[in-house]
């Protein structure tokens, strides 16, 4: 890069050829006030605040539109310049509200900072009340309080020059100029891509994200992509969705694999908080992130991520035992192995995968999927010992391990304490689901009542359907519109003939020692949980009724199958007590993760917990605890989005699902996923929230050395 020598306010500055005077000054930490100029945008020279005087040039010039030249002598502070800037700012403020106190960007507003810097306030000019600024200013994602707009045109330029969407322009009506769309169309109809660049670049509070779109707790870069922010494992969702859209399925899988070793399993069963958080849901419906993940894995022919993913650090000589081969334990085992530790996983069941294998039914998550993903972990040198129950973590540790991780999950079902609940043909959900999964015998009758309303209850119901039972009732405390289970589970169960009784509290079992005949329940108006987690019911007096049943399944919660002999401190509900910062138990070197510490949650939570445990154990063993990976190198993102007709209305692509009749009689997978066309279209629906992170931040006057 060729250097150009210039002088600014008697200081020698070395600028780059082709640079503007403004940029050269700012790079040299010399502040020149500016509003319409932005480092990412084509200069417009409109606001006039960046005027400077140059020796040999008669009048003041805007520094954002003037290129540096060898030997240029520039002054940025003179009385004349102060006057020009002052009047320009006064003119802008004449139509800007006089009260900033209720403006959410108070003290983070470039205009307000400019008032400070230039010493300008509302004063001698006439107030201009623009009438047309509010035309069609409402939309579900962008707050446009255009009375605050100073028409610097940054949003217009970022939308047209950088995103190439170009829906914004200077409009003119009744002698007033305002920023709007062609024909004043609402943003949706104008085919806005809702990327948020205009918000990111607005110097005032005129353009803002709708309150509540982003979490306030996360760092801004993460918060701006709510899908990624809410993913417990922090998967870089916008990146892989974009890669799927580009047909780069293997790269997409690499991105996913950076954060989790069960991409396909999660592609089937993840509870996808990312989709709940997806900004697109405010336009119509969220991007089908889970189906895209599954599609990517199923179409990853190259496995280009494998070489990097298989890298292991040199052996450390440390030995780690993991108790439990579920998602938490196996995730942890994988990353510990990568950090060079020797890892052995002990599993009490004859199969691996934990709840992914014995809890979640096969029709939702095919077994070979889990097996393949576990095989990768074994390939990485993790030894898995099945059919091996560990009775004491402490003894295990003392038998020669440097560290132990307890990841036993919650495999002990809970029955409501009531008469007859210990009779035959009264099961916990886990007994029922595990027996089916492990192909063990279990005695069932013809009429099954399932008590509970979460996904597990529906897993039981739909498993029972597939076992040929005709009369299945789910008895659920929650009302119809507030059920805990996923909506698709409820709908598909009903399609398969399962009966759901809502707002009923089970109060007893009917029958005798010779067998159960029914479940007695009472209608509930309302219920809540007291301070100790105690259920408080508002039951309808005299509304007791009975559901006939010869088999009862309690799907009312699980807990870790542990007791005091296990050698670590346990909390209420048998949960392992840990230091939340380090996941270490009361015993040095013994850690715990997954459901075993926080109760029954979902696979992705277990993965996240397993990652954290791996990092903490590595630190404990003397490592740096860094398990982050970059399996796919990040290419520069295409800043361009382009305009797509009807973008806002693009419907979510749904996966193909087996018909109820054909799926009822087998355990084969119900959800058939997306095809390539659908996946490509679905990925194209993404708003690409991450693009705006690349827009550079503007520094305020106080940040500069020479101001």
């Amino acid at each position, binding site marked *: 890069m060729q250097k150009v020598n210039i002088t600014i306010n008697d200081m020698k500055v070395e600028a780059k050829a082709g640079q503007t005077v403004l940029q050269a000054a700012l790079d040299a930490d010399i502040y020149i006030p500016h509003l319409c100029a932005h480092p990412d945008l084509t200069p417009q020279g409109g606001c006039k605040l960046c*005027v400077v005087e140059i020796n040999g040039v008669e009048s003041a010039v805007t520094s954002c539109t003037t290129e540096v030249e060898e030997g240029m002598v520039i002054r940025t502070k003179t009385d004349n310049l102060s006057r020009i800037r002052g009047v320009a700012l006064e003119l802008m403020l004449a139509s800007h509200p006089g009260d900033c106190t209720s403006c959410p960007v108070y003290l983070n507003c470039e205009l307000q900072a400019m008032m400070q810097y230039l010493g300008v306030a509302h004063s001698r000019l006439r107030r201009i009340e623009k009438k047309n600024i509010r035309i069609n200013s409402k939309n579900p994602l962008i707050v446009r309080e255009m009375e605050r707009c100073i028409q610097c045109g940054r949003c217009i330029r970022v939308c047209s020059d950088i995103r190439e969407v170009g829906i914004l322009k200077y409009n003119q009506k009744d002698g007033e*100029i305002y920023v709007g769309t062609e024909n004043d169309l609402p943003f949706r109809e104008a085919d806005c891509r809702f990327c948020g660049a205009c918000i990111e670049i607005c110097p005032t509070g005129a353009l803002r994200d709708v309150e509540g779109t982003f979490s306030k707790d996360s760092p801004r870069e993460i918060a701006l992509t709510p899908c990624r922010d809410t993913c417990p494992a922090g998967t870089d969702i916008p990146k892989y969705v974009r890669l799927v859209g580009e047909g780069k399925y293997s790269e997409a899988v690499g991105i996913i694999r950076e954060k989790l070793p069960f991409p396909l399993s999660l592609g089937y069963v993840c509870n996808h908080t990312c989709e709940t958080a997806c900004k697109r849901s405010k336009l119509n419906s969220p991007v089908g992130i889970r189906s895209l993940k599954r599609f990517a894995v199923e179409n990853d022919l190259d496995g280009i991520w494998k070489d990097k993913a298989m890298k292991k650090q040199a052996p450390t000589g440390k030995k780690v035992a993991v108790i439990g081969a579920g998602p938490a334990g196996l995730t942890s085992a994988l990353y510990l192995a990568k950090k060079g530790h020797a890892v052995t996983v002990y599993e009490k069941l004859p199969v691996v995968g934990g709840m992914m294998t014995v809890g979640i039914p096969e029709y939702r998550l095919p077994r070979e999927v889990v097996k393949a993903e576990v095989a990768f972990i074994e390939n990485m040198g993790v030894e898995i010992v099945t059919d091996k129950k560990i009775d004491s973590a402490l003894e295990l540790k003392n038998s020669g391990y440097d560290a132990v991780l307890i990841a036993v999950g919650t495999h002990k079902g809970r029955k409501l304490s009531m008469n007859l609940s210990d009779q035959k043909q009264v099961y916990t959900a886990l007994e029922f689901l595990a027996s089916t999964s492990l192909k063990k015998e279990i005695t069932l009758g013809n009429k099954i009542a399932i008590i509970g309303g979460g996904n597990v209850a529906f897993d039981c119901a739909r498993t029972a359907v597939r076992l040929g039972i005709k009369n299945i009732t789910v008895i659920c405390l929650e009302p119809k519109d507030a059920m805990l289970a996923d909506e698709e589970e409820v709908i598909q169960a009903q399609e398969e003939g399962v009966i759901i009784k809502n707002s009923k509290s089970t109060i007893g079992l009917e029958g005798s020692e010779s067998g159960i005949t029914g479940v007695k329940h009472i209608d509930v108006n309302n219920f809540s949980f007291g301070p100790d987690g105690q259920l408080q019911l508002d039951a309808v007096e005299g509304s007791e009724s009975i559901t006939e049943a010869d088999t009862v399944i309690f799907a009312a919660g699980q807990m870790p199958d542990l007791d005091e002999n296990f050698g670590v401190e346990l909390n209420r509900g048998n949960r392992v007590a840990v230091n939340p910062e380090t996941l270490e138990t009361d015993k040095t070197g013994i850690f715990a993760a997954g459901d075993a510490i926080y109760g029954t949650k979902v696979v992705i939570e277990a993965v996240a917990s397993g990652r954290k445990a791996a990092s903490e154990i590595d630190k404990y063993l003397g490592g740096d605890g860094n398990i982050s990976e970059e399996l796919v190198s990040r290419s520069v993102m295409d800043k361009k989005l382009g305009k797509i007709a009807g973008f806002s209305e693009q419907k979510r692509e749904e996966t193909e699902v087996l018909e109820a009749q054909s799926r009822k009689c087998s355990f084969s997978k119900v959800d058939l996923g997306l095809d390539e066309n659908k996946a490509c279209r679905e990925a194209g629906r993404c708003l690409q929230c991450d693009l705006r992170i690349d827009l550079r931040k503007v520094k305020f006057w106080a940040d500069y050395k020479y101001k």
Partner: protein
Amino acid sequence: MKITCEKTALAVNPAVIENKADDLCSVDWVKTLFDEARRASCGKCTFCREGTQQIYKIIEDITNGEGESEDIALLTELAQMIRGNSSCEIARDATGHLLTVLEKYEDEWDMHIKRKRCPAVVCKAYISVHILPDKCQGCTACITACPEKAIVGGDGLIHVIDQEKCTRCGECFAPCKYDGIVKAGAVKPKTPETPVPVGTFESGGNRRRRRG
């Protein structure tokens, strides 16, 4: 890389204002000019976009009786600033004319601001419209033409304008075949308060009642 606005100057004939006729008000003329200028602005440049708007608003106030004594100085400062620093011809041109007019017709501006008068009898806030009783033939043509129904009278009666209702729109001038409707500034013609038969109003009536 100097960025200039693609707009060119407004079509103005400066001769009109160089040798202005007695019934042309320089304040009103510049107001119209700035109304055009603000409508022609492309919006990119503060001085043009906000400046023409602000100047228009100040001049509008001056024509509406809401001018303030500092306004001339303020207009001059704004005009010089815009003329010197605007990106486009429109704003530079318009402010140039404003500066010329402010200098050349200072008295006329002063009259508007301080004495609330428009010497050219153009600015509506400072004028009233009257029907001359010696010209009116009571034909009702102006009554029909008045959009505000501000003229009272009937066949053969001298018509009278209700000054509360009259908006000085001027719709009544053309229909009058007798040149009987006039604008007035500070000095207003004598007219009856309510309609009286044509020919009965004595405009110099007072003097005759004088004693002695």
